[in-house]
């Protein structure tokens, strides 16, 4: 297997994701009604919105786990090619999508670790089998990555033997060991017991402070306010408001956003 090109030095501020008029329809339900978003290298973008606003669907469109119904999508400088079949849009070039997915890390709400593999095996899987990298080099990097998320001492455990917070930290390690250019987080703390949220957010804070490009769907308002460089607020499948967290959280910029954050009685 030919190894994937490794971590090309990013141009500072280069566009990594560009969505133009992105739509997604399930039958008669319009989940996304034309979303425009441009994410640049080094940005940390929090995507907020009430449930049903389409934020998770949008995030899943960005690595094509959901195929958009319309609009244009450019990931890492490549236009995603679609084809129409019976009036529905499909992926035209599966190789292109697989290649891009290996450079776009995804962290799921439910961790989604492979239950039949140990922590270390989970982390080593992608670099070895998808990227075709050398096993010994990968093992070394996987161990370092696990150490960074504080999970090296659980390397030989199976996912079912770990707490939710620990599983999520492994899932983050599994994503970053692929050396992705962008990290997508789909409500990474929503399935966790409250006392476990902090350990995951801490890892995410560290990643953000390293200058990694991250798009985060979250309900953690304090985290979004403190860590993001930009907030994107979705409502009914459209971008209702966006801007710096300072501007938005100050209030008065968008009344719908103000109403939304007022539901979070504990913004701590």
């Amino acid at each position, binding site marked *: 297997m030919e190894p994937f090109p490794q971590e090309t030095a990013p141009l500072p501020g280069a566009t990594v994701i560009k969505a133009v008029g992105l739509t997604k329809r399930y039958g008669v339900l319009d989940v996304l009604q034309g979303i425009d978003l441009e994410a640049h290298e080094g940005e940390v973008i929090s995507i907020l919105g009430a449930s049903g606003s389409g934020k998770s669907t949008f995030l899943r469109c960005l*690595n094509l*786990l959901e195929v958009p119904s319309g609009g244009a999508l450019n990931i890492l400088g490549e236009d995603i090619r679609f084809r129409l079949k019976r009036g529905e849009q499909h992926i035209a070039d*599966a190789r292109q999508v*697989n*290649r*891009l*997915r*290996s450079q776009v*890390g*995804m962290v*799921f709400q*439910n961790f*989604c*670790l*492979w*239950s*039949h593999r140990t922590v270390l095996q989970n982390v080593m*899987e*992608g670099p070895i*089998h*998808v990227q075709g990298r050398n096993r010994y080099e990968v093992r070394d990097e996987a161990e370092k990555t696990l150490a960074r998320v504080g999970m090296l001492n659980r390397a030989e*455990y*199976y*996912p*079912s*033997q770990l707490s939710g917070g620990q599983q999520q930290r492994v899932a983050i390690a*599994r*994503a970053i060991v*692929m050396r992705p250019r962008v990290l997508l987080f789909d409500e990474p703390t929503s399935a966790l017991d409250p006392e476990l949220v902090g350990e995951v957010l801490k890892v995410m804070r560290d990643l953000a402070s390293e200058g990694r490009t991250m798009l985060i769907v979250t309900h953690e308002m304090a985290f979004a306010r403190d860590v993001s460089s930009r907030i994107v607020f979705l409502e009914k499948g459209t971008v209702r408001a966006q801007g710096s967290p300072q501007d938005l959280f100050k209030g008065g910029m968008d009344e719908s956003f103000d109403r939304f954050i007022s539901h979070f009685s504990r913004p701590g």
Partner: protein
Amino acid sequence: MDWSFLFETLKTLLAGVPLTLQLATTALCTGFVLAACIATLAESAFAPARWFSRLYVMLFQGTPLLVQIFVIYYGFGQISFLRSSFAWPLLAQAYWCAILALSLNTSAYGAEIIRGAIAAVPEREIEAGRAIGMAGLLLRRRVIWPQALRYGLANYGNEAILLLKATSLASVITLMDVTGLAYRLVSKTYRSEEIFTVAGLIYLAMTFVIATCVHMLEGHLNPSRRV
């Protein structure tokens, strides 16, 4: 109790064990290959392939194995084009007819087990594979099949046990497996209780070995559930 007769019976019947095991393992292996094909057809995007797979499973699950053996052993001989075909040298032998019937029969059940096992693989773990760029054979080999094996193993172990016991039906088409030898001995001695009890114990010992192997394999594949 006539210990020396029991011992003689055991010695006689044990001679049938190799044939019983041969029938069971050959049918298990070919049946598994067939089952994997049928299960693949069941998930095919091509509708007639799905219908075929459904019909196949219905046909072999819906008729008794004994009838299937009779149809293949007695019925195929009536079909003239089969008699002149290349397969006839095999189909003319009871041994191969039994293997064929057992393989076809177990493959129908096996296909359902495989289909169920693959359906049981958590969607989100498959999605996690896709999300890092896996697809096609790689995704199957690294995520879907290893998981499906864990879900399907216990059921397939049961099927192996059922199959082993089902081989006893091969005795009705003259094969001298454990049951066949037991029949012959009964017709000579008229001591059916003792002979069939011994035969039953032999089957029990064989199924015990299978069950133990499956159990050990399960433990090996699921280290996290071992306590």
